[in-house]
């Protein structure tokens, strides 16, 4: 099915092979266009019995349960669960801050790997995959499709996207909540360096639209540790004003600010039921994606 032979720096076949063992499942019923492996809010033709329903004229006589008619002398139609595909919308933060790296891996590289792996896995199981690259707006977007050519386009987009500009993630998420037509799994890959209250509002909006929202927050170890030995001039990667300070002097206050932000974020994701994963870019991305997939597999059966 996947015919893209072009090598992609963010795809590791061995990692993908290992991750393929766990299906990508939605936490909520999806409304797909074709049969798939995801629960649907509608009745369908799967082997899983759902309920009996009284026969009404026009129903397919092949679905009439004769045994029930023999027992009760009434006509019942046997209904089964429907399985469908899902729409996976990857929201990739491409603001300037995603280009930060204290080590070898930038946050945008790390995000590419996560997005690439998820896109591939979804495509492999017949789900539609779309990507939205966002910064101070929607920079590039690829609506969800489920064909192999579309996956190649998605990989191309991941390849070509370059981080730049400021972040307006909450506004962009509001916009996406309105523009994604049907229920979808919305996976946000970002450092989430924006106003926590605005972000909470955006998450709630997506949830209101019955989207299954997941978020990978990418953090660089240096952003947490904040270990500098010399006075430093910090250049804002999103074009803001530079700050000159002695990190030794303000490290305690910086750590307090980080702690407060992380606590806020934890509260927000709990309140808005976001499948939240905080990931350090020094960790293997396979671990992050596997955790994401396994967490969802355990929630199978929700309709």
């Amino acid at each position: 099915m996947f015919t893209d032979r072009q090598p992609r720096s963010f795809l590791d076949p061995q990692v993908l092979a290992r991750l393929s063992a766990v299906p990508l499942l939605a936490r909520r019923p999806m409304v797909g266009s074709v049969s798939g492996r995801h629960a649907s809010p509608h009745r369908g033709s799967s082997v899983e019995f759902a309920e009996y329903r009284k026969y009404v004229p026009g129903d397919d006589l092949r679905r009439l349960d004769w045994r029930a008619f023999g027992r009760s002398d009434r006509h019942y139609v046997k209904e089964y669960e429907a399985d469908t595909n899902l729409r996976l919308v990857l929201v990739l933060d491409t603001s300037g801050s995603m280009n930060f790296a204290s080590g070898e891996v930038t946050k945008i590289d790390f995000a590419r790997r996560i997005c690439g792996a998820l896109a591939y896995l979804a495509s492999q199981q017949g789900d539609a995959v779309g990507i939205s690259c966002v910064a101070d707006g929607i920079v590039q977007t690829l609506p969800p499709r489920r064909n192999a050519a579309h996956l190649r386009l998605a990989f191309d987009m991941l390849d070509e996207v370059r981080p730049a500009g400021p972040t307006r993630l909450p506004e962009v998420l509001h916009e996406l909540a309105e523009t994604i037509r049907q229920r979808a799994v919305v996976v946000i890959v970002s450092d989430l360096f924006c106003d926590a209250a605005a972000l909470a509002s955006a998450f709630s909006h997506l949830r209101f639209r019955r989207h299954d929202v997941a978020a990978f927050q990418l953090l660089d170890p240096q952003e947490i540790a904040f270990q500098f030995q010399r006075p430093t001039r910090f250049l804002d990667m999103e074009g803001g004003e530079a700050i000159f300070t002695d990190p030794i002097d303000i490290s305690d206050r910086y750590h307090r600010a980080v702690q407060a932000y992380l606590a806020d974020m934890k509260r927000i994701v709990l309140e808005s039921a976001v499948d939240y994963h905080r990931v350090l870019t020094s960790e293997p991305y396979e671990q992050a994606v596997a955790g994401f997939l396994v967490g969802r597999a355990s929630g199978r059966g929700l309709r």
Partner: protein
Amino acid sequence: MTFLQPWVLVALPLAALPVIIHLINQRRFQTVPWAAMQFLLAAKALSRGYSRLRHWLILLLRMLAVAAVILAVGRPLSRGWLALAGGGRPDSAIVVLDRSPSMQARGPDGGESKLDPGRRQLADSLATLRAGRVLVVSDPVRGPEEVASSEAIADLATAGPTAAAADLPALLQSAYDFIRENAAGTTEVWICSDQRANDWRPDDGAWASIRDAFTKLPQQVRFQFLAYSAPATGNVALRVSSVRLETLGRDRRLVVTLAVSRQEDGDRRTLPVRFEIGGVTSAVDVELTGREAVLTNHVIPLERSAEAKGWGKVSISADANPADNDFFFVYAAPAERRTLVVAEDPAAGRVLELVAGIAPDKAAATVELVPPAGLATASWDTAAALLWQAPLPEGRDAEFVQAFVDRGGQVIFFPPDRPTAAEFAGGVWGEWTAHGTPVTAESWRTDQDLLANTLAGTALPLGEVEIRRSCSLAGDAVSLASLPGGGPLVARSSRADAITFCGTTPAPRDSSLAAEGIVLYAVVQRAIDRGLAVLGNARQADAGAATAALAAAGAPWTRRAGAANAPSTEAGLHAGVFAAGDRLVAVNRPAAEDAALAVADKQVDTLFRGLSFARIAGTAGDTDRLVREIWRAFLIAMLLALVGEGLLGLPRLAAAQPAARGVGSVEAAA
């Protein structure tokens, strides 16, 4: 604060190193692209008052630590509480010691005197200062004595206590002379004294010239005054005012008048007073109720076999100052009361002959009328007083009179009928003034000298003496009695205490001195008594002045009593009894030593105005060192500064660790 190695202080600007390093560190900043700006902004927005304060405190403590190390290397010295005078190691140090009896007063614990810790502290201080040369000035006549090492000051024989008053102006003049002639480079003059007025003589005109002289010295001279000005409490001083030998047939007895005094009012006390005469001891109790008690005419019978000449000692029990508990006296048969009268006016001469010829006791008194031309043949050696009513002596006559005065004779000059321009002892007779209405003396000194009150405290009736004619006196004299308008009636020569000028004559046309004979009689007899004091074989002398008396005795002297361990070169400075030929001399502290009158601190400052002067308060029995090296204190200060710097740095580290743990825990939860 002074330093033994002040050149090290050149490095003191190094204390700014922490700030400079801080500034350099600020300049070599790094530029980092940063994503999590929102945390940085939040961190900067958080309260930074304490952080900034801590930052500057750390810098300050680092500077203090560096400064403390530099100061410690400079070997700082602590000089008591003042330490105002700067400077390092002096080239010469001159110690001016006040060895007067009042310096022997002990502290409240009764241990050491003021002089002992003074000498020890001076020795310690100069040893610490490592002065190039150390000299001690304790006697203006002897001048500065160089000592091998400063430690020797404490044991120097000529730096021990004496009974003589210290003449501070003379001592400082002696120090100045030495500095001018010998000392090069910086000199420190250390004065150790109890600030008594009779030692310092603040009214002495010499102070101004000494001050000017020191100011003009090319080398730097610093004065350090170690002041022991606290008076001794509970001290009682003993003084014998007169000793008279009386002979009644074959029996002889001593009539002693003495006084015990104290400087502050106190409870009624009974003081046992011990007399020791020729190995025989007797005692009498004296009730001391106020500040002074006088035992008048205490009779001590002498053995028949005793000589008509001898010595004794009166003493009281030990108290705060042992130097004024003993008093030596000598006695001998009184010399003949012989008076020379030179008078050009027979009327005046007759009156003078009468008043001089009647002794107050039954002793014989003789008067020799000497014509002005017969001075060469007069018996000068046996006369106690000279009454001179003639033009002031000139030429050879002046030499006779001057020799008489130098020997101790007393002279009273009365004005001649026709005053000349002759001058003697600073006095010159002026013009006669006839008073139409007789005048009387307006004021006179009743506390001392020839016109002093009687022993009973009654003033002489000088105010009843009518002055009909008076002769003015020009020149250098101290007025003892003055006429209306301020002119002197009676004056003492400021050059010689033994010379008195009387501005009128006892002739009836000039005054009623003859008619109101009491005043003239008292004045003349007092002068004769003074003159007799040096004529007899027994003589009382003040310590200090006794040196000249012993030297003038004309025979080798031997010590009969007193400080046996005192150097023979200082015999006249110590209390005791000395025998020179037929004469006995009792040496005691001067009467002024018993008065605890101290010079005010401000006045002392005034005396050293314009000079580098610092005073350090000392106390008797003080064992602390005056000058000490205090580099340890600076090292401790450095350690404290470093500990403080470390403590201020601690909270920063403590805050960083929980932050790291917090992230980890959140990660684990996620």
